[in-house]
């Protein structure tokens, strides 16, 4: 949380003024019992109407100034809290947007979203509450105690004893309650997980007629949740009665000892009443304080999580070294070259790619095939510079990928990811992601090349609405639109990562022929699970468990590469002539 304090830097004034005005208000409140005591001790015995009215007017005055300073304090507190969260939110979002791929993987989208939403909101509430209340309660408690000492040192000691006993009680109860609430929260998460599981597996559950047993296992989790919540409730049930009882017993003690002092002439009745009033004020403040502890606990937990994110290393400061000499002769420059590249996602994980050595000429179409986890997507992401090689170098146009300025590299490479993502907005908005300045005609052309004219027509043209997540488009339509988007970028390197998996055979075929006749004839990497999708590629790279199992044309590989043949056969091809007949 300490790391977040810098976001209050610009609000130093507010952070000082808010508690200051709160203190002022509390100070005014502490004068009230003194005035009442004067009324009782002086006004009433002497029937001094003027004094009483003067005291009354003073009380009204205190009320007005108290109100004014309280409003001022609230204003500064709100300003500081909102300013804090606005800046924090901006920095956090900027940080998250500039995460590298490995960082995205390690944190995960759901956690990032929670940081941005509820954690920041809780932190804001925490700052606001802290400025307003966290200091007010101690002011009142300490102030009341000091006043008690001023009136009567013996009674002051009673106050000190009270504060000690109360603090222990409040802290113990609040702490226990927080941990019990956390336990209940875990049970709730279990129940939620069961519901989700039940919904996602509804067909299987019904196919096996196991609905009743599902109910039984849910009931036991639900019962546990209920028990945990009852436990937490039992604990929080204690807070109010216990604090109430402690304070009242101390009040009785105070009155008793006060009475003795009055008889001995050390105290006046008004003083006893004032002491009584001070103690009552403490009661109200402490109850507020206990509730505040819970809010602050939440805010601190969220703050810690945010701070952890902000502390993460900046990954994207790859400096552009302008004078990097290009390796090799100009005419010999490969579009993409892998020089004995190995890669692992974590230090202790297994290698996902091992010793890949590969040179691709500009304009070539390269197919990549292999089982799940063979390293196909990883290879594509190394070219794009999303991850950097653990060993060896990946170069694009003869230059090491990690020497590129990030933007420069992004402009060189256009990639269609495995998961086709559309953003909310219009179809045109989405397509222009690839090229901000593209004209409608250019969009139309890309749409045609990506075989999604029908999809665009069906939704009512280029300016049709796309819902969040592209839910109003089918999986195949989303894939083709993301291909169109990638084409608009007109980059010299195009990577299609299993981009046609949801398409039927015929559309897939047409798409492939369109890709081959692109005007600028970019270097194309085509990742697929189907050998038939790749058979026309200039070269096909066969990956098996992170290693190169073969590299060559379709026909060569059928003869020389067992892995490729196995894949091909499992997809129903005994010999090549039959499928290729068309």
């Amino acid at each position, binding site marked *: 949380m300490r790391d977040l304090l810098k976001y209050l830097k610009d609000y130093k004034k507010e952070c000082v003024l808010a508690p200051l005005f709160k203190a002022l208000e509390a100070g005014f409140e502490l004068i009230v019992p003194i005035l009442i005591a004067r*009324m009782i001790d002086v006004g009433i015995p002497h029937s001094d109407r003027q004094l009483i009215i003067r005291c009354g007017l003073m009380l009204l005055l205190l009320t007005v100034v*108290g109100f004014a300073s309280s409003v001022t304090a609230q204003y500064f507190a709100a300003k500081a809290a909102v300013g804090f969260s606005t800046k924090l939110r901006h920095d956090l979002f900027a940080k998250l947007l500039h995460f590298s791929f490995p960082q995205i993987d390690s944190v995960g989208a759901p956690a990032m979203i929670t940081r941005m939403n509820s954690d920041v909101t809780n932190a804001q509430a925490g700052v606001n509450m802290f400025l307003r209340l966290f200091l007010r309660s101690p002011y009142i408690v300490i102030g009341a105690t000091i006043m008690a000492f001023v009136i009567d040192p013996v009674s002051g000691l009673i106050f000190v004893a009270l504060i000690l006993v109360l603090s222990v009680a409040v802290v113990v109860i609040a702490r226990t309650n927080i941990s019990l609430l956390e336990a209940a929260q875990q049970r*709730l998460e279990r129940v939620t*997980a069961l519901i989700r599981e039940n919904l996602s597996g509804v*067909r299987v559950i019904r*196919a096996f007629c196991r609905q009743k047993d599902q109910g039984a296992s849910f009931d036991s989790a639900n019962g546990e949740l209920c028990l945990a919540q009852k436990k937490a409730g039992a604990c929080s049930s204690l807070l109010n009665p216990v604090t109430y009882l402690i304070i009242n017993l101390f*009040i009785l003690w105070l009155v008793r000892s006060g009475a003795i002092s009055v008889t001995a002439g050390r105290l006046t009745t008004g003083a006893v009443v004032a002491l009584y009033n001070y103690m009552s004020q403490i009661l109200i403040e402490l109850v507020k304080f206990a509730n505040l502890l819970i809010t602050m606990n939440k805010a601190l937990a969220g703050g810690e999580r945010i701070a952890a994110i902000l502390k993460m290393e900046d990954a994207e400061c790859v400096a552009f070294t302008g004078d990097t000499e290009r390796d090799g002769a100009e005419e010999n420059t490969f579009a993409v070259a892998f020089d004995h590249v190995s890669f692992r996602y974590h230090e202790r994980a297994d290698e996902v790619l091992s010793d890949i050595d590969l040179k691709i000429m500009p304009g070539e179409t390269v197919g990549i095939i292999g089982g799940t986890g063979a390293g196909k997507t990883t290879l594509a992401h190394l070219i794009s510079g999303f991850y950097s090689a653990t060993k060896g170098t990946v170069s694009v146009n003869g230059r090491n990928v990690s020497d590129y300025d990030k933007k420069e590299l992004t402009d060189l490479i256009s990639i269609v990811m495995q998961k086709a993502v559309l953003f909310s907005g219009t179809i045109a908005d989405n397509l222009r992601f690839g090229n901000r300045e593209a004209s409608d005609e250019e969009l139309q052309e890309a749409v045609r090349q990506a075989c999604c004219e029908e999809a665009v027509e069906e939704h009512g043209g280029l300016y049709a609405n796309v819902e969040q997540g592209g839910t109003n488009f089918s999986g195949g339509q989303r894939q083709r639109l993301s291909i169109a988007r990638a084409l608009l970028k007109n980059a010299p390197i195009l990577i299609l990562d299993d981009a046609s998996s949801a398409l039927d055979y015929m559309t897939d075929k047409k798409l492939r022929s369109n890709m081959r006749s692109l005007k600028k004839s970019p270097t194309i990497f085509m990742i697929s699970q189907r050998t038939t999708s790749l058979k026309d590629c200039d070269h096909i790279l066969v990956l098996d468990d992170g290693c190169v199992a073969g590299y060559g044309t379709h026909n060569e590989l059928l003869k020389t590469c067992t892995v490729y043949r196995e894949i091909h056969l499992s997809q*129903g091809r005994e010999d090549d002539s039959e499928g290729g007949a068309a």
Partner: protein
Amino acid sequence: MSGNLFGYVPGGVIREGERVSRGAVLKRVLKQERPYLPLIILSFVLSAASVICMLLVPILIGEAIDLICTGKNGDALLKILLKAGLFACGAAVSQYCMNRINNRVVCHTVRDLRAKAFQKLQTLPLKYLDSHPHGDLISRLSADTEQFSDGLLMGFTQLFSGVITIIGTLCFMFSMNVAITLIVVCVTPLSIFAARFIAGHSYEMFKKQSSIRGEQTSLVNEMLTNEKTLKAYGREEDVLKRFDEINDGLEKISMRALFFSSLTNPGTRFVNNIAYALVACVGAIAVYSNATPLFSSLTVGILTAFLSYANHYMRPFNEITSVITEFQNAVACAARVFEVIDEEETEEKQDQMPLKDVSGDVSLTHVDFSYTTEKELIKDLNMNVKSGMRVAIVGPTGCGKTTLINLLMRFYEVQAGKILVDSQETAASDLNDVRSAYGMVLQDTWLFDGTVKENILFGNPDATDAEMIEAARESHAHSFIRRLENGYDTRLGEDGSILSQGQKQLLCITRLMLNKPPMLILDEATSSIDTRTELQIQSAFKKLMQGRTAFIVAHRLSTIRDADLILVMRDGAIIEMGTHESLMKQNGFYAELYRSA
């Protein structure tokens, strides 16, 4: 069905239409509480007792102060203080008991409600579950019930005791002194007015704030969920700019909303303090000018008690306002849960014929079906499958392949025509019998968060370990299971997260191996399984299919070619039917599909 998980704000807004039936919902909530009626009555009694005890303490302290005034501090004072102590104890104990009871009632109510809703999910037709986002249903069952419980608890504990406190305070004050009470009664409503005024103004701001915040949340969700795509296009700065525009707008409105809403406490305190000053002033004058009949018998002690009342009198008003908001929210949440509970279930038809010892003949005659009335899907579908046949269903996406599975398993009911198994109409047969006759492996494999063993035994809980291992061997799953950390007792995590896609599918096949149903439905995975596992799966499938009728939604040409019967579907109708050879000869849609592959 992925469902929009993020669009829903748990328990947040009260939507149109829910307002209308709030009364009805409330009635229903109360009805649910009927079994707890004795406890609730006890809670009310305890609440009243606690309030009365609490109100008596200041009066007794006032009496004690009067004794001090008159200089008596002996046994009489001690007696009064003892009495006050007893009342304080009484108040504390009864408040604690009341809290425990309320807590119990609420926890149990929510538990029952949640259990009921979950039971309901088991009986709801798939039509409902398929057409409702799962995220929304999950929130209804977890977040909404939670919110409901919070609101209900607050309502219970604070509403009743708040009302009793107000009434009790008024009664005690009137009994002590009418005139001063009148001052309090006249001034305090001003604070309600002030609170109302502030609430009314901040409500508008909060509404604006939550709409801007909603906009921001949705941008954040969308961009962070798809951050990788965003980065592939290098559009981070554009997004950040859009975010900042929203964020700045949010800052302005948040600042105002927060400031305004935080005026409530100072506002009510302000009014309260005015009342306090008036009571002190008038009361003090009344104490010495004892003569006036209106201010009869006012003493310093009573004045002290009055001042303490004046300080606490307003609190319940504030509490009640916040309780009502909370309670309204709770009722809205309850309404959303009730909506699920009230949904029409699949009718459990009576006297359905049992369907046992199925041999596996299946025939469909003139079957019509559609998910929505606007779009016809399956029209006049006919087919005849003999026991032991292997039927491949092929066709482009969206042609009705999955729909056919839905109908065979009776996840959905046909709208016209008949489906017969062993010449018996399935619609008239026992639903469990029909489903038990099929074994099903879907493309999206489903495993639950339990051990490997529990997952395999899901289809047949009574199987022995030996039978289970035998089944796993047959389906080639044994070798990888053995290599897992705890073998068959390894916990899989939610949705089998520790396994690869292929391994998951092997487990699902093992599940069927143990069951050996007479008919099979297999939905081949389109992609993402490595070659070796793929071969193992195919061999396992083959073993499983021996002597059984099998329907296969096929994506692999090898599966298709080996089939005894190929159904070519397009736009919900079977347009071609036959073996591979006969269909190729026909040179129709199938031949075209096959060649294009």
